[in-house]
């Protein structure tokens, strides 16, 4: 059986590679807390490539404007239609930022408008329980970016199931550390990453 592989999506515009530590830290948390059959390292896969369909979980991030190519749009649409899960995180943590504006435009163009994910959604109980919805990041609490603590994540949902999860919380910065560094923290900051992956694997 093929193990779960954390895939980071490569797109032609912007800086898709800005969250290169995220795969390692999420894989580390999955290995610590679950018995999932895991690939030890993540992969980078082009959104335009048919190889994308071999990895039903894909993570997208960046700071810069996002403009998908026609091939990327076509492939991403097919990916979601067949049951793939997209997790897209704004590395700017800024609702007025260029990544947020362009990325949400692209997603809306492909899948329809993004809607708030209710804070009692099954996503927040998929493994760990997050009573108040999405965990806040230190960037939000320190007032960086747009100086807002975002109450909800956004999503493209079909029959209550999240197909595309979009975050303004900048988990990409929050999880940008070597896995060994987590031992100095009171709580593993990437626990919510476990929830996202487990949700994608079970719903």
């Amino acid at each position, binding site marked *: *059986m*093929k193990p*779960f592989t954390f895939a980071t999506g490569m797109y032609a515009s912007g800086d898709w590679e800005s969250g290169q530590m995220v795969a390692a830290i999420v894989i580390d948390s999955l290995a610590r*807390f*679950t*018995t*999932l*059959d895991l690939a030890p390292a993540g992969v980078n896969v082009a959104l335009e490539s*048919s190889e994308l*369909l*071999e990895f*039903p979980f894909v993570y997208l991030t960046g700071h810069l404007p996002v403009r998908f190519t026609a091939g990327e749009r076509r492939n991403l649409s097919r*990916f979601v*239609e*067949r*049951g*793939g899960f997209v997790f897209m995180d704004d590395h700017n943590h800024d609702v007025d930022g260029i990544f947020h504006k362009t990325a949400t435009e692209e997603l809306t163009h492909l899948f329809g408008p993004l809607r708030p994910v209710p804070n009692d959604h099954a996503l927040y109980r998929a*493994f760990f329980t997050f009573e108040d919805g999405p965990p806040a990041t230190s960037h939000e609490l320190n007032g960086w970016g747009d100086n807002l603590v975002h109450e909800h994540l956004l999503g493209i949902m079909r029959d209550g199931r999240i197909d595309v999860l979009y975050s303004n919380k900048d988990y990409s910065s929050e999880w940008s550390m070597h896995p060994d560094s987590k031992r100095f923290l009171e709580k593993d900051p990437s626990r919510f990453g476990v929830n996202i992956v*487990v949700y994608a*694997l*079970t*719903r």
Partner: protein
Amino acid sequence: MLEGAAHGLALGILAWLLLGSLRGSGAGPAESAGTRSLPASLPRWSTVVRPDRVHLTIDGDVSPTALDWLAALVRTGVPVRWDAGRATPVAAVADPMTDPEGGTRVRAAAVAGVTVTLADGLGSLDSVTAARGGATFLARSGPAWISVRAGPLAARAAVADSLVLGRILLLGQVGWESKFVMAALEERGWRVEARLGLSPRGAVLQGAARLLDTSGYAAVIVLDSAPPGSLATVPAYLRSGGGVILATSATRAPALRGLGAAQLAATLPAREPFDTTGPDPRRSLGLVPIAEVPGQVALERRSGRAALAARRIDRGRLLIVGYQDTWRWRMAGGGDAAQAHRAWWADLVGAVAYVGRIPRPLSAVGTDEAPFAHLVDRLGPPSAVGPGAGTAGMSDGAMFGILAGLLVLGWASRRFRGAA
């Protein structure tokens, strides 16, 4: 000598015809009819003129009422013979499909090479040329009744039962295979409950825990040898009539070893480039071949090794799936791979599932699932010859011709030898 023989034979024929006319006096005429004229003929034969004998040529459907009427005529002493004409044997049966999307599977028995046409009350639906095993139709609409026509005769069948479908229980580990098997079956309309291992002390549970028996579950799918909870109740569920689908990795579970299912050591890796188009969409999937054991039927093979196998165990049905990572078919397959993957898993479940049956009210339209067989049953086997033959032996015209020939022969013989 020749004149004497011709003369004697002519006298014999005259005597035979005279006796025949005397014996036949007082009896009715010999009647023949086609099935289309039968509704008009039957009342006449019963109320106006009682025929001496009846010959029926099958050139269309014989209604159950007409067949009963003909059988009654036979019991009153009127010989009824029939010939099949262009009619060939045909029979049909309609079964509800074990599928939440509904539908009817129509199996038709017909002579190989004959065109078989499926129709319902609104008209023709499909037609095929019957193979050696007849023909099978799948009707998604679930009509109240269907007819299967092969030549002049049509078999008419109705679905006798409604099905009660239980839940599916999925046991395994959290992963893409369990996710996409569950998605395929839920999209098809099955209610799926799941127990999926996720951590040493945690599991993903979908649906309430309930007793594993045929009153609640139509089938159990086991994807792994060590799912959360116990597999000990699965063999008893299977033997009591339940349906079980095992991935080859599940056959290693100690609780399931008694079922006799096993995998071979050698694994055939997935073929790259991954391609699910063409007549064998599963040819690119990785495969763990299934060990052949007595009583087991290999439903699919690759390179001579069993890829999908089935067997009956007491009242239950067991299916073993050797294919690995079937989710890749749905995600990365070409064309309508997602629908094909969904339909394949639904077919697997439908093949083993335990279903409750509730009899339906009989259709207002009379059914006759085997019209040719019913004709044989009520009227005896068909005659190989046409109407009028067999009872009188020869027609009167033929008799007259022979008689005239014999007289001419006697006269010519006398002329040739110069006698008066």
